[in-house]
């Protein structure tokens, strides 16, 4: 707990440190556990999606060089390719240096137990730091996974030392995330949800509706969709009365958009990064983050408020 005392209240971070691999990014508290994780994490979908193994390896190694120690993935990414690549390029040399998170779409406890075994085998490790129930989409979806005892399956894996933390991800409907937090309560250690500059203006905002509840419960809040699956960079959506430009850099800079994410009550900004250059840019933002006051946050939100409730940009709100 001594580490907690060093947390700077303006950034909610412990300043950057170093380990056997070199300089490490600032760290934040992983919910009520008190464990610390780097404020930036690698999103695994882009590791599996990278064109060729050497590119995937370069992204992983550049992330480590830049001080990232948090790695996300899921067995369903590219039919397992993301996990296999961690098994080839991350785990063999760096397992003890990083926090490793995967997910499962299991609908029964038996399936969850079995799928965790496949994740362990693909990544060539004997333990995973956190496993999330992947993409809870509705109250019914959460209720179904609960009735068929997915969490009980998780807990067996936890008792065997194969998993340390349990949680869920959800990017469709804040009601589903809140329902999941409610029905599973203290069984949930961690949750991954969308956090970006448009979200507070949406009629169904994860930042407004879900993040405070997670903080209250001591659930480690992980941020995803910080650029809406890259659509902030690529989708120039037509909005009445505005120039047709992409959100980044048309409305806000990359730095502003991502500092806004770091300014929220999150412990790790999980970002999909498709090149070592992208890793370096994000890591610089994470390393140099000095906090952002409410007025600045509000100004950034106002800059992109016209894009609210637009599923061409926030495409993850379509993915059931």
């Amino acid at each position, binding site marked *: 707990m001594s580490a907690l005392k060093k947390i700077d209240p303006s950034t909610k971070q412990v300043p950057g440190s170093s380990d056997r691999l070199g300089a490490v990014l600032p760290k934040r508290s992983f919910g009520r556990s008190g464990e610390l994780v780097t404020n930036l994490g690698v999103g695994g979908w882009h590791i599996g999606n990278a064109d060729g193994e050497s590119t995937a390896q370069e992204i992983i190694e550049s992330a480590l060089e830049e001080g990232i120690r948090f790695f996300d993935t899921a067995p369903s990414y590219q*039919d*397992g*390719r993301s996990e296999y690549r961690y098994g080839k390029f991350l785990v063999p040399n760096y397992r003890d240096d990083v926090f490793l998170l995967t997910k499962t779409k299991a609908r029964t406890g038996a399936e969850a137990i*079995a799928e965790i075994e496949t994740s*362990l085998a693909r990544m060539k490790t004997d333990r995973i730091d956190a496993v999330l129930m992947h993409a809870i989409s509705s109250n019914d979806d959460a209720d179904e996974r609960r009735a068929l005892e997915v969490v009980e399956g998780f807990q067996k894996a936890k008792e065997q030392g194969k998993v340390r933390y349990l949680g869920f991800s959800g990017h469709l409907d804040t009601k589903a995330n809140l329902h999941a937090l409610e029905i599973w309560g203290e069984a949930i250690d961690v949750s991954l949800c969308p956090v970006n500059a448009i979200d507070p203006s949406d009629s169904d905002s994860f930042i407004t509706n879900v993040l405070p509840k997670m903080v209250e419960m001591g659930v480690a809040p992980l941020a995803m969709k910080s650029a809406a699956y890259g659509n902030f960079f690529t989708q120039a959506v037509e909005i009445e009365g505005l120039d047709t430009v992409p959100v980044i850099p048309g409305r806000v800079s990359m730095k502003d958009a991502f500092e806004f994410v770091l300014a929220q009550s999150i412990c790790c900004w999980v970002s999909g990064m498709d090149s070592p250059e992208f890793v370096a840019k994000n890591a610089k933002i994470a390393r140099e983050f000095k906090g952002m006051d409410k007025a600045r946050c509000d100004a950034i939100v106002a800059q992109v408020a016209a894009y609210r409730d637009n599923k061409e940009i926030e495409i993850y709100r379509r993915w059931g």
Partner: protein
Amino acid sequence: MKLSRREFTRSLGFGISSMTCLALSGCGKRTGISENGNSASAAFPKIGFDGFFVGQRGVDDAQALIETAIENGFHFFDNATTYIEGRSERRYGFYLTPKYRDQIFLQSRTKSRTKSVAQVDIDLTLARHQTDYLDSYLMNSVVPYHRDHQVEMPDEDVFEALIEAKKGGKTKRIGIRTREDTTALQALLKTYESEVDCVMVPNSLSPSDKAIVHCKKHGITVIGAVDREAQPNWLKSGPDAALPQAHLDSWVLSLRTPQEVASFASKAKGLKGGIS
């Protein structure tokens, strides 16, 4: 080793005729197995049902597809671990196996790249299907991904995990799925020929392809897999076009709706053997 396959087939039996046989006297006394080594194909169901759309469609449609397939005589149900991120397997587990496990021939497939993954991936498939055995389990000789052009090669020893699974009673048969280029399959057949019960090939693969010639020579069942994109066209052209060509022992059809299932089944009624 061929003997072992014959013995295995003898003890298993399958298809409608062998189901009857099971009811009357047990399949251990099945006779008439040819001496040319072609025994595995004799017991393999002729027409299979593709599980892809069971995962891809809404849950009500999925149940209707399964029930219509059963009503119309399908009993060979094919699947793959990666279809719709596992949803196809889960839905067989929720809507097919609880009611019909003892009446069906259940096949699934893994995209494992390493032996250690294949050793546990079958347990995941069994858990999703809510059963303790498969009738047939296949590995991919090369691993493609439908959303891009990257193709991966499994390690050379992945098939050994399937051999272990069969010995452990988790699956009755084991085999290999290939794409148009059969180079990797040919290499695997060379190493594991005596252990391979079946191969699954694109139905467009030439009868003179080296892998098919090898399988015919050694009595390995050849299952055709229909190209899902092309299928709607040939479904219209009548039942003959939907039946396995001479070089295929079995054929998995991709029927997208209960209407397509019923339509195909009514056309197949007039054919020798129907859906068997």
